[in-house]
């Protein structure tokens, strides 16, 4: 085991200082306010400034538009960006798709796409979920039909977060409805400015903006196809595994941050705010923390936070989300009416962090695959329980109309 604090040498310290300086300069209060109002998960100026320094793809070598950062520097960058609340949802989806682009994109377009992604002018989003679907991505029904050197795409996708920030969507389509479910799928990188693409905003009570994207006879060139026809599932697996926190190299996982960790960060912020509230004397001079009951409530949230941070792998993703959900609810209760004061309402403790955490928490149990999807994976891959026999597990079940 090794849990020691990483001691930074003087060059690493200078790097951390540069990162912090950059973030102070670019992730301004205006940027944060814009993010609060829009829920965009993206700010173009910040994104392009990151790209200028090679920090969109920080571990890529400089000649490919990255910064050639070693794991320690890459981790410093991640932590500082998170600490500064850098809007980074579209950054995350761009990174997830880039690996598939490198491996599968047509050579005629590949280098431009990757270079654009690294400098920030090209962004990718994930076109997975469908309005009548859900977490069962392989049940995709959006159709792509070949027409000479082109493909014609029809259907709709929901929860395409960042579509309005992106140039391309990483789209999973059905190219052969007759084949077994996972075999009739093909991936495309669809330009979002193509005729027939329509993006509509959806807002969540967690403050995020996501989208529904309609594809009405969208024609794309065959060069937009990623990987073989009907081989889309294996193309998608890479980014999907990355989203699930599953990595090929064992060494990397210690330095990666999954959804569980992101949830823990929000819980830690809410807990800090509640702890500050608890030590602040009221009008009568008494502090909430003088009451052992308050310390007990804070203690339970702190325990779940500690547990969430150390719960490994697939289990950590569920624990992180559920610790945030239960913890944020408990802290809201603890603060009473002050706990539901909105962000930006002056007496809201910590600028409304607890109110935000309680709303934001709910989405973490769904996006990136619901906690039920993860429980299924844990049941089968960790506990070795038998797979359930569902009629639609291997074949596409079309509801009769």
């Amino acid at each position, binding site marked *: *085991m090794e*849990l020691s604090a990483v001691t930074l040498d003087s060059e690493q310290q200078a790097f951390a200082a540069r990162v912090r300086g950059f973030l102070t300069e670019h992730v301004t209060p205006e940027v944060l306010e814009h993010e609060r109002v829009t829920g965009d998960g993206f700010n173009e100026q910040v994104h392009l400034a990151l790209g200028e320094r090679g920090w969109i793809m920080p571990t890529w070598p400089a000649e490919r538009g990255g910064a050639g950062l070693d794991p320690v520097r890459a*981790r410093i960058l991640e932590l500082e960006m998170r600490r500064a609340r850098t809007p980074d949802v579209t950054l995350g989806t761009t990174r997830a798709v880039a690996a598939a682009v490198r491996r599968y994109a047509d050579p005629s377009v590949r280098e431009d796409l990757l270079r654009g992604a690294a400098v920030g002018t090209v962004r990718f989003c994930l076109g997975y979920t469908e309005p009548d679907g859900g977490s069962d991505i392989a049940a995709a029904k959006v159709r792509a039909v070949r027409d000479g050197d082109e493909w014609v795409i029809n259907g709709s996708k929901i929860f395409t977060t960042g579509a309005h920030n992106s140039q391309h969507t990483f789209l999973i389509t059905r190219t052969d409805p007759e084949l077994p479910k996972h075999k009739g799928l093909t991936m495309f990188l669809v330009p979002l400015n193509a005729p027939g693409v329509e993006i509509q905003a959806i807002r969540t009570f967690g403050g995020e903006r996501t989208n529904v994207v309609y594809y009405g006879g969208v024609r794309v060139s065959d060069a937009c196809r990623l990987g073989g026809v009907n081989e889309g599932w294996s193309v998608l697996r890479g980014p999907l595994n990355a989203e699930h926190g599953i990595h090929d190299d064992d060494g990397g996982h210690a330095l990666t941050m999954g959804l569980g960790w992101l949830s823990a960060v929000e819980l830690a912020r809410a*807990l800090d705010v509640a702890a500050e509230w608890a030590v602040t004397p009221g009008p009568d001079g008494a502090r909430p923390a003088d009451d052992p009951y308050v310390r007990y409530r804070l203690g339970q949230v702190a325990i779940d936070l500690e547990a969430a941070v150390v719960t*490994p792998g697939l*289990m950590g993703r569920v624990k992180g989300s559920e610790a945030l959900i239960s913890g944020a609810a408990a802290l809201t209760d603890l603060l009473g009416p002050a706990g539901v004061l909105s962000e930006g309402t002056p007496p809201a403790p910590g600028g409304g962090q607890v109110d935000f955490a309680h709303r934001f928490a709910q989405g973490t149990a769904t996006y990136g695959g619901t906690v039920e999807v993860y429980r299924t994976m844990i049941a089968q891959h960790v*506990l*070795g329980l038998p797979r*359930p026999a569902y009629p639609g597990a291997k074949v596409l079940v079309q509801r009769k109309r």
Partner: protein
Amino acid sequence: MTPDIFELRHTDFSLAEDELAVREAFREFFTEQCPANRVRASEPLGFDARLWRQAAELGAATMGLPESLGGDDAGLLLLVIVAEEAGAVLAPVPFAEHTAASRAVAQFAAGAAGAGPARARDALLSVAERPLTLMPQPVTALMSALAPAGAVARDVLALDGDELVLLHAQEPPPLMQNQGSTPLAQWAVREGVSRTVIASGGDAVTGYATACAEWRLLTAAALVGLTRAALGLAVDFSKSRETMGVPIGSLQGVAFPLVDVEIGVSGARNLVRKAAWLADNEPGEHPGLSEAAFAYAAQVATHGATTAAHMQGGLGFTVEADASLYFLRAKGWSVLGGDPARAVRAVGDALIARVLNK
């Protein structure tokens, strides 16, 4: 408590070669030597003297002691690894109590002449025959209190005011039969019981607090092992038991509750090991962490043992099912130091202290 979540730390929970070797040695030993029938045979006392001697031959009774006292100077990380393996088979030996108590006593056994160090050295003389124990809650003027492992130990470490004392009796008091079949007994200063001060003032209070923190961590590790094994029984059952033509483990109504136990076990194990590692390497710098690990492990064990028994339906509720052994000890071990919710509040206390001292 709740360290800076953005702090740059290694997060490598994989066990090193020596840590793995210790785990494998004790896993093999406990699995071979302590099947369920041996656990049953030890009831109601919950102590198997031969198993304790065998474990002592492997080093269990002394590994955490300094080399000068015949030990191996093992740190808490290795000790919690052993405790988890003992817990997984419900080994009827007081490893947690003995280890925490003997390490504290060892601190005051060295050097100076006098009654205290002499008694401390005596207590450590024949640990393979007679384990030590402690009162994991402070006692008031040594009025009668329930001591875990008190029915098999001749020496009990306790804090009496600001004095750290060893109570000693030639014969331990009688067993107080209990849900977890652990050797609980009532100790008091009475005829036949000697009371020797081995430390006083700040040293006593600190030494006792450390002993209690170590006991909580070791007990937490044992609870992790207990829950892990209880879960294993339920998983095996749910793979073979069928309903309506399918194994019940393929049903989400069975699988998901078992998954929730795994989520708890895997996190509690890492939390215990983290607290142990930090106590070994950064002592005193993480107040509240041993309480957090203990409280979480106790919650996980209570929930896990109930779930594991319940997923075996009526069979899990029968005394013939091994699940029952686990269920009864989950509470039987969790409450030996008092209400585990007090550890929750202690975590809150540490959090508030950190905020106030910022």
